[in-house]
Structures are given as structure tokens and as C-alpha cells.
């Protein structure tokens, strides 16, 4: 069971050490390994609103730890993951991280998922000058300016000037130029920053913004919102939403038969298997922000093998069945950690931070290089279009062709289809 991870991984580490006894020159090195595991601690949303992605991240970490242990461990020590459920509640996070660092005395800490849980951990790790690898945070270090913070997220450090760039590159692919855009975003950190970026590029390209509103996260009926957008007759619609509202918006758009030239933006949800299965053809021709798609242009070494392993275990772990969103990045985050620790040869927080800052890392999501603020030095926001979606069958999302990459140009794998809407 995923929730009793410490015990399970303790057993796994022990089993690994015992198994390793047969592979190592003598019995004693293996015995020494099991007595001194390399402990990596983190809080994670294993329950609550963000549990879907939290559990997926945790599974990716577990797969990495098991693989490392099967290879004989890291720095000659078996890896042990120490995980606590933060319940998607930032209030639990300071306690969890002081427990990890002061009581459990873990060697390395990584972050919870995502911004609202990462931020409360920052003062705790900063006070102890611990190198902090975070996952899918959005601009957390803009305020803290901590020089040992490294975030695994394609968004980069200048969200306003980079995030929606790809979406507007897709707009340029329309056969007749778009003249107007509607923007709407849910009231939260990530969505508001995404909408800010869309406004930036719309103004830069002199697109007329005919609708620009936010809505509260508690909104359940999106028919009035979609009708208002529809009545403004935009050529393009940019939505920044979270899973519950994404679902509501797309269903309202489908019911009202609203078919602008391009519809999509920064909708969180269509990246996940559960929503792909639920929405089926409603997703067809949606142009949306993403992090990974199994297109030929993204077949980085190791990603297919990881996903095969992940998909095998996802049903039992009660998490996202496809692992096309956060899991490859979670695994890559651990690859980065592994490479840096292997290079410096010891657990030294200052040396680890220096190594992470200085080097480029080969991972299953491609090359990763951190910039001065600890974000990716170069952003890589994908804008994918769902194509040929006729039903909720998830098998198609394991192969190329269902989520075609339109931007950035370096990873482009297909052509834009317009307008948005399910196939006739």
C-alpha cells in the first residue's frame, strides 16, 4: 500500500541489501549498506485535492529508488524514501520538514507537489541550508531567492514572457490571421500567471482582447461564462483552469457547440488519463499546454521503459494510468539528483547545489539545465493538439498521433487543425 511507504521502502532496502549480498564481493559490504541507507525525505500530497498528481510523483520516485537499489544503491548505500502525506494542506508542511530534517535526519530532501505546499517548506530548508529539489512549483523562489533551490518544471523563471509564447506561435499557424482573443482564468497562482502571459503576448501581437475575466475556484456552472465568451465572438480562446473547472468548461463548450478557430490554453486536466477517458471526443482539436507527449520528437532515451514500468504499477497505486504528465519529470528529477551525488561522491549540501547549478543533466525528459534562480534555464512549454479523438479509449495516448506537438518548433510533430470541435 502506497501510504505506508517508509515501512515498505525500509523492507525494500533490506531486501535489496540482502539480494546485494550475493552480488557483492563479500557479505559485509552489503551488511554495511543496509545499516546506512541514503535517506531521501519529502512530504507529498497522497490525499486531498492534489493527490492525483502527488501519488503519480510518489510512484515515479519509488520506481527510481528500486532501480537504483537494484543497481547496488547510490554512493554505495541503498536508497530509502521517507515520505509523509501532506494531505494537500500547506499547514502540515513545516512540521513534516522539521521532522524529516531534525528527527529522521534524512540526507536529502525533495519537495511536495506543488507551489502551495513547496512554499511552506522553503523557510525550514533555508534555515538548515539544505539543497532543495522541487517539483512543478510556479515561481516559488521569486520571493525566497534561495541559492540552493532547483525546480523541475518546464515553465522556466520568466513565466510572463515565455509561458504562452507557444500558444501564440500556434495562432500564427491559422490560415487566416486571428484578430481577437478571449482570456479567462481561475483565481489561483498558476492560472493567473498563465493568463498574464497570454495578455502579454496578445498585446504584443496586437490581438484585440474581447473578453478577460477571472472566476472563483468554487464555480460549478460554466454555461454563463461560455455564453459570455461566445457572444464576444473571439477567434481564439485562452483558458487557464484547474481540473474540476476544466471539465465543466469543456462540457459547457461542447453543449453550446462553441467552435472558435483555436480553443485551449493552460487547462490543467486534459493531460491526465482520467479526464482523457471521461471527455473523449470533446478534447478533439483542443490546443493545450502540456509537458510530455509520446511523439517521435520526444522519445528521449529511457522514457519508454520508464512509462512501461509506471503503467504496469499505476492501477495498484491508484494513480494516473498513463503517466504522461508529471511522472517522467519526477523520475528525471531523481536522475538529476543521482547524477549530481555520483559526481560529488558524498552528501554535501553546498557541493550538491554547486554541481546542480554548474552542470547539464541527461534525463528521460531530455537535457536539463538550471538557471540562476533554480528554474530551468530555458523553458519548454509544449502546446499540443488532441487529434483524431473519437472516444475515451486510453490506448491511443500511449502512441504518437493523439497529442500532436505544435510548439515549440524544435519538437513539432504535426500540423494545426482548426476549428476546435469534435469530429462530425
Amino acid at each position, binding site marked *: 500500500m502506497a501510504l505506508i*511507504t517508509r515501512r515498505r521502502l525500509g523492507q525494500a532496502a533490506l531486501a535489496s541489501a540482502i539480494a546485494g549480498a550475493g552480488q557483492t564481493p563479500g557479505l559485509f559490504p552489503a551488511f554495511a549498506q543496509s545499516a546506512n541507507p541514503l535517506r531521501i525525505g519529502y512530504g507529498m500530497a497522497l490525499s486531498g485535492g492534489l493527490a492525483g498528481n502527488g501519488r503519480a510523483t510518489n510512484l515515479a520516485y519509488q520506481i527510481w529508488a528500486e532501480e537504483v537499489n537494484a543497481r547496488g544503491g547510490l554512493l554505495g548505500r541503498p536508497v530509502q524514501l521517507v515520505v509523509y502525506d501532506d494531505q494537500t494542506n500547506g499547514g502540515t508542511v513545516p512540521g513534516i520538514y522539521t521532522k524529516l530534517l531534525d528527527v529522521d535526519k534524512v540526507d536529502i530532501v525533495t519537495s511536495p507537489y506543488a507551489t502551495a505546499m513547496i512554499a511552506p517548506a522553503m523557510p525550514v530548508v533555508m534555515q538548515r541550508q539544505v539543497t532543495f529539489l522541487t517539483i512543478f512549483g510556479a515561481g516559488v523562489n521569486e520571493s525566497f531567492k534561495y541559492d540552493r533551490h532547483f525546480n523541475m518544471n518546464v515553465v522556466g523563471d520568466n513565466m510572463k514572457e515565455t509561458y504562452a509564447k507557444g500558444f501564440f506561435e500556434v495562432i500564427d499557424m491559422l490560415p487566416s490571421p486571428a484578430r481577437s482573443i478571449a482570456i479567462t482564468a481561475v483565481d489561483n497562482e498558476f492560472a493567473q500567471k498563465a493568463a498574464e502571459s497570454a495578455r502579454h503576448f496578445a498585446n504584443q501581437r496586437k490581438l484585440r482582447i474581447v473578453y478577460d475575466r477571472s472566476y472563483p475556484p468554487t464555480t460549478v456552472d460554466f454555461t454563463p461564462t461560455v455564453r459570455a465568451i461566445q457572444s464576444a465572438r473571439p477567434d481564439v480562446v485562452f483558458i487557464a483552469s484547474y481540473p474540476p473547472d476544466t471539465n465543466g468548461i469543456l462540457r459547457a463548450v461542447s453543449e453550446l457547440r462553441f467552435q472558435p478557430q483555436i480553443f485551449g490554453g493552460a487547462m490543467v486536466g486534459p493531460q491526465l488519463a482520467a479526464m482523457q477517458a471521461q471527455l473523449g471526443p470533446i478534447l478533439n482539436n483542443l490546443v493545450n499546454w502540456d509537458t510530455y507527449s509520446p511523439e517521435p520528437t520526444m522519445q528521449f532515451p529511457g522514457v519508454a521503459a520508464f512509462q512501461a514500468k509506471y503503467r504496469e504499477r499505476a492501477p495498484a497505486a491508484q494513480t494516473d494510468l498513463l503517466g504522461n504528465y508529471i511522472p517522467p519529470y519526477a523520475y528525471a528529477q531523481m536522475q538529476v539528483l543521482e547524477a549530481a551525488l555520483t559526481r560529488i561522491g558524498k552528501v554535501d549540501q553546498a557541493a550538491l547545489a554547486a554541481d546542480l547549478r554548474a552542470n547539464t543533466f541527461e534525463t528521460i525528459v531530455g537535457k536539463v539545465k538550471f538557471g540562476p534562480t533554480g528554474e530551468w534555464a530555458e523553458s519548454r512549454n509544449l502546446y499540443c493538439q488532441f487529434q483524431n479523438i473519437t472516444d475515451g479509449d486510453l490506448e491511443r495516448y500511449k502512441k504518437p498521433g493523439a497529442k500532436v506537438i505544435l510548439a515549440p518548433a524544435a519538437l513539432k510533430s504535426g500540423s494545426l487543425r482548426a476549428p476546435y470541435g469534435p469530429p462530425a
Partner: protein
Amino acid sequence: MSATTLTDPRGADRIRHLPFWLGAVGVALAVFLALRLIGNEYGYYAGYFVLQYVVLASAWNILGGYAGYVNFGAAGFLAAGAYTAIFVRKAFGFDLIPGILCAAVVTGLLGLGTGYLTLRLRGVYFSIATLCLAVVLQTLVVNWDYVGGSRGAYVIRPMTIPPFASYGEYIFLVMLALAVITVGIARTVEVSRLGRGLQAIRDNERAAEAVGVPTLRLKLMATALCGALMGVAGAPLPYYSGYLNPDAAFSLAFAVNAIAMPLIGGAGTWAGPVIGAVLLASLQQAATVTISSALNLWIVGWILVIFVTIAPRGILGWFGKR
């Protein structure tokens, strides 16, 4: 009204106050010294978690326990305190202690205003009104960009505050002092004319009014005091976590625990919320780092069901009955 309310033993009250305050300060010192001897920062963070609920539950008890007016808006008042601290920090550069004082004033006034508007409602109607207040406040905060709005607000705190060993120790001591003061205020209210008047209101408001208890005035005093202390519980929250967003500040856990803790410990007595808060918050903190899951609220729910069934007057009532 009980027989004790017919007398006014002020002299006896004065005599009883000193040992209480000495005892409370002694217990607080013992707790602090024990944690310092252990020398582990985690103790301070876990201790803060428990103590914030001691303050919150004791504050809730003033209106809910003594007067019988069930307030479902505890999270709203706590968040109002937290966001007041954020506002005065950003606007005037006020640090934690002035922030707490401002939060007490603002949420006290908020409590007074809420009381004025809603105390003509009784029973479930009053409870619904307080629940609505939390929703209104959350909507206000979500749309107020100056305090972070929906994005949340960062509070970059110093790493240490001399002469304290760490910021964790400092914020724990602040919350410890707030807990002692709040419990002291709750006890003072309980044994004062105000408390007796509130108890009379709880037992039978019309009868109390008939015998001359100024019900509206007492209820307004109670809502103001209750609001101020709940705000005090919330003011250090952004300093504790370094970041606060509306979801965390208006968390359901605060609203549920504020009610569950006094009910489990024994509502209507100053010691009941303390016992309930220490018991439940410790259990929740232990659950977070042992079984580690959202079973926290599940545990609270079950304990509440068990107590409501077996010991409806809480732990103190259970032992008192025997």
C-alpha cells in the same frame, strides 16, 4: 441558572486567580524547558500546531461553550487574523507581535459586527450565518490582490531572532504565551459575571432576559472576545509557514477542530477545550508523521461520534458524572 450565579464572591475569585496564573506560567515554562532540553526543532513546530488549537478551541468555547451559540465560522476569523497580519506587515512593516495585536483588534471588531448583525438569530440560523461569514471573507481575500489574492502571500521571515535559538523556538514561545493568555481569559470569563450571564443565556435565553440579564450586550461582548482570540490564533500562521493562500487559511480543518476539540474535552469549561485540543491536535500531528494520511479528519470525526454518543458532555463531563 445554577445556584452559584446567585452569589458574587468577588473576593474568592481574586484569591483563585493568582494560583491559576502561577500554575499556567509554570506549566508553560516546564513545556518550554522540556523542549529546549530535547533540543529538537520539530518539537517546536509540533508544539505550535497543538497550541494554535488550544487558542482556537478556547476562543470558540467562549461563545459556543458558555453561551451555546455554535460558531461554524472559526476558519473565517482565524483567516481574518492571518490576513490582517499580512496586511499590516505589507502596509506598515509591522512584525509578528504588532501584527497579532492588530489582528486582535480587527477580528474583535469583526466579531462585534457579526454579533450585532446575527445574534438576533438563534440555533441553527446563527450557525449558518457564521458559516456564510467565512465564505464572504474567503471571497473577499481571493479577490484582494494586495494581500496576495488567490495566488497567496509570502512572508519572508528572518532565520533567527536573538536571543532565541531559532525562529521555530521564537514562534513557539509566542504561541505558548498566547495560549496561556487565552486560557486565562477564558477562565476569567467563566468565573465572572459575563460567564455566568452567558451560561444563563445558554440554559434559557428568555428566562435570563426576564430576570434582567442584558443578553444582547453579553452576547456582543462574547462575539467580540471570541473573534479577537480566534484572530490571535491565526495571526502567526503566515509567519509559521512562510506562505499563506486562501485554501490553507480557510481550511475546513480549522472549522472542524474548533468545534470538535471543546466538545470532546468538555464545552462550557475553560479546561475542556485545552484537554480536547491537546488530545486531538497531538493525535493528528502524530498521525501525520506515523500513519501519514488524511485519516486525521477521519480520526476527529470518529472520536466526535464516539464522544457525542457515549460522553456528550466531553471528557470533563464524563469524569464529573462519576
